[in-house]
């Protein structure tokens, strides 16, 4: 019985704290994306800028590691029985990648455009027994081009 109570309170804690942290993070992401909208990050290798105008080209990168809360993990294991989209993890992945992109843009400073952006993801955390600690590491890297006017 005590196990059940502990489980339920952890679940409630995970849900409460997790939802609050997620909302806060999303607000911050939306704000920063709005501020950095003028610096595009593209997967193209070139954006038709004549070479003599490029002042500098520099590799920039950004990474973020986001972890799940207990509530999401339980939802995912239930989903594992029935199949289908693991909706609880979708926001986790989304946040990690957008955060990585934003940090890459922050590193670029006042560059004009970041080209050849690649995004790598890796799952880290103790892969012990059957319970993975779900942490996702997202890394974005590209070449930041500064163009003289």
């Amino acid at each position, binding site marked *: 019985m005590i196990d059940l109570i502990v489980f339920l309170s952890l679940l409630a804690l995970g849900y409460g704290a997790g939802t609050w942290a997620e909302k806060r993070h999303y607000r911050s992401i939306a704000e920063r994306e709005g501020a950095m*909208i003028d610096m*595009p990050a593209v997967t193209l290798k070139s954006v038709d800028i004549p070479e003599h105008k490029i002042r500098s080209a520099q590799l920039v990168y950004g990474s973020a590691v986001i972890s799940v809360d207990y509530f999401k993990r339980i939802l995912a294991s239930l989903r594992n029985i029935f199949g289908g989209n693991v909706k609880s993890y979708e926001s986790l992945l989304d946040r990690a990648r957008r955060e990585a992109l934003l940090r890459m843009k922050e590193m670029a400073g006042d560059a004009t455009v970041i080209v050849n952006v690649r995004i790598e993801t890796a799952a880290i955390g103790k892969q012990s027994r059957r319970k993975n600690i779900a942490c996702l590491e997202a890394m974005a890297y590209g070449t930041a081009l500064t163009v003289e006017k």
Partner: protein
Amino acid sequence: MKFTPRQPGINVNVTPTHPLKELAILAGGLLTIVVGVYLALGLAVDLMVPRLSMELEKKLAGAFIGRLVETDPVADTTRSLQALVDRLQDRCAPLPYTITVHVKESDAVNAAALPGGHMVVFTGLLAEMASENELAFVLAHELGHYAHRDHLRGLGRALVLMTASTVLLGADNSINSMIGQGMVLTELSFSRKQETQADEFALETLFCHYGHVTDATSFFSKIPKDGDPGRFGHYFASHPENRRRIGHLEDLARERGYPPGKPLPLPADLVSKSKPS
């Protein structure tokens, strides 16, 4: 190449379902499936159990019973109880079982029929007995459970549950230990129909052995001395179930025309254990 900053209005990568709703749906679905499987397997077990052979039952019983049954220190009591059970079995309740009686020191006023032919009688019960007929009724009632193989249904269900939980969650999980504990309480208690059938069996055995059924229900009518029947209090008259059972037995005795008679006193070995009632 011209760049136009645009933003999509919505986030395409996240499905907008509320997580609590998802939890409710998934957990509810899982619960329904588990309950459904449990019920289906219970039915399957009920169908299979009458076909289970004695040897197989003894083997299965060994796994569950080892903990409960130990060497008992009250050897004399055990011997005379065993003799009484053997006498009852001899002419009137021939079962293909060898029933082994175990006496355990405990205040619990109860007797139990465990798989494998092990009958457990608690000294608390012996203390309440006033005549041999009364004791014989209780023992014959347990024999009735054996005759109908009631104890196997609980055993079967517990086995099936443990197998299922082992498959889903791995061996040695918390559900298995819960079942091990819970089995003693829930699965070993018998349904109303099983109890009634065991009662009838006991009544017939008593009539066959003694020629009358006086004192058969006197145990039921006893009021517990300290007012609290405890966990296994279903033997006491205060339990509404018992009033029904007493009524049923009295009706049956009347229908079959069982004559009244004089009850026999308790065997000497057991008298010292009984308290004046």
